[in-house]
């Protein structure tokens, strides 16, 4: 993932299936399959055919956009750049996507802990109630931010957490000034 974004260097790729799947043609075929399924799903929905005033059907733009996505992907399968790949794509491994998904899950957990708010009211509430100080931005933000900084390479550990605490306090103060109250059990 080292090539800088914004670099316009593209490469042609040759080799086995794993290399082929990283080309525009490979990714376009995968996306085409996804959009084809989406298109079939849409065409089976009743709301798509709901007729509004003067003959306009509710699903017109939705189906049009899904068809456009499918056409774009299919054109990528056959166009001049079909055998090219991007440097990022050529180096991408499944574990990289796993890491990105993990980072997002951690951000979701951070949100739940720091705001004491969540996506599934019924089943998450009893679990959250057992964790002390949920909804304390000033506690959970330095913990998550400091750990993140350390994991990404800030050394020593003390510096990562000191930086995280300072940043948290500054953010908390600045948001208070502009009228956005961040959650704090201790200060409320």
């Amino acid at each position, binding site marked *: 993932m080292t090539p800088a974004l914004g670099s316009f260097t593209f490469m042609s790729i040759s080799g086995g299936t794993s290399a082929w799947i990283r080309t525009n043609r490979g990714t376009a075929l995968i996306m085409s399959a996804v959009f084809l399924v989406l298109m079939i799903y849409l065409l089976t929905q009743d709301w798509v055919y709901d007729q*509004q*005033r003067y003959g306009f059907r509710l699903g017109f733009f939705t189906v049009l956009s899904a068809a456009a*996505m499918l056409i774009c992907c299919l054109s990528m399968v056959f166009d001049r750049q079909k055998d090219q790949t991007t440097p990022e794509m050529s180096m991408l491994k499944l574990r990289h996507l796993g890491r990105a998904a993990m980072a*997002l899950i951690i951000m979701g957990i951070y*949100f739940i802990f720091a705001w004491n708010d969540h996506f599934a009211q019924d089943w998450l509430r009893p679990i959250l109630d057992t964790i002390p100080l949920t909804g304390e931005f000033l506690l959970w933000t330095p913990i998550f931010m400091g750990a993140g900084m350390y994991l990404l390479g800030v050394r020593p550990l003390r510096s990562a957490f000191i930086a995280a605490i300072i940043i948290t306090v500054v953010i908390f103060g600045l948001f208070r000034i502009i009228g*956005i109250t961040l959650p704090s059990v201790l200060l409320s």
Partner: protein
Amino acid sequence: MVNMDALYEAIALVFTFQTMMWIAIGVTIGVGVGAMPGLTATTGIALMLPLTFTLDQAAALGLLIGLYKGAIYGGSISAISFATPGTSEAAATVFDGHKLMRRGKGKKALLIALYASVTADFLSDVITILIAPLLALVALKFGPSERFWLMALAVCLLGALSGSHFAKGMLSAALGLFIGTIGADPVSSVPRNTFDLWWLGDGIHLIPLVVGIFAMGAMLEKVLELSTAKRQTAKITGAFKNLFSMSGEGLSFKEYLSCWKEMAIGLGVGTFVGMLPGLGSTVGAFLSYGVAKQVSPEKKIGSGVIEGVAAAEAGNNATVGPTLVPLLAFGIPGSAVAALIGAALMLQGATPGPRMFELFPTIIYSLFLILLVGNIFNLGIGRIFAFVYAKLGELPAPLLVPLVMGMAVIGAYAYANNPWDVLVMLIFGFMGLLMRVMRIPEAPLVITFLLAPQAEENLRRGLLINEGDWSAALFNSPLAIGLAVAVVLLTYVSSRMRIAERMSEISDEQEAETSAAEAER
């Protein structure tokens, strides 16, 4: 015709301590965002957008426009100091700027970058102020079918000129249209395309979408870069040492004036490029630099001269004001930043478009005044703190990434106190990462997402006027037919002549030079 009452009201709104403070904050954050590699004007504005709903109109515009101006200039600081452009817009500044730096003329390079940026920015703002109302007058004569085809044309232009692959640009636009149809339809408020999820009933909100795509997506890419690169530890102690220590030869007024031709080229090229949907400030900088090199071979641009820095910086900053012209005149954002500024206007209750000049003249005049005043703040803050920002560029990315990710969560939630917005932002963050990896441009997605409800409203209004006759609704005037033909021609020409690919080839050569400059470093 100038509405004097509205102008006086705008002056009273803009020249208050609060608005001035927010412009200053915007420029200060913007220059920092631009100077730090990995953060762009779009990321910065996406992160700040949720905060603007707590501010009044002038303050909100001041914050965002200040940030935009600051970020476009700020990219030059790390480009000159470390040959690492803070933003892609500043890549052309590296060629001459960093060579000057290595010759001990870094201060001179930073100063000409600042002065050329502010000069071209100010003059292009004046052109924007003159042109936008005239175009809006023309746009007011358009009916629903003309407006529909104009939007279609803008989307095709975006697809053709964004990125280097026409199909990918159009795919991004189609994705934006699809996402834009999620939730209640804009005319009769009937829910649709919600995948039977109740929390999608209200549709996808713009803020979680842009924060996810632009900020979270960029940071996820950084996380992968940092985790796959050879383990490097970053010590943050000492980063703030010698903040004001940069010494060297300054810039004389005569030297500044000697760059008039390059600044004029930057102004012309940047203004033109800025007004066209899809091109943006990076193309403005590279084209301006390339033209200046051709026009004045005797100045040896590329060998480390201030004229090269002036051409590149004037070229990118001259796009700042003109990028708002399509937004204000036609209601069509020509770039991701214009889309975000348009979103801020919508959050303030003013839908961008030609009718804005009639309905919200105070906001329009405030915007124009802020465009002009922002340059003074950019000049002052850039002049005093450029050397501090140069050191900020050395701050390690591991420090920055968790901060931006945290801000993204705060921004997505603070907008409506809705936890589902955070989930939507995280999902779009992943999508943003995939788009970056596959080099699918993000701007067409966001712009089409914003245009989708307007396009649908116009088409349905056309059907209503023509009592369900589709051909009359779509082609009811020679202009509508002309625009429809232009859409077809543009699509054909773009796919056959590979316009985007050729544009990127020009940048490609310049990128190779950037890499060489970095290698020399």
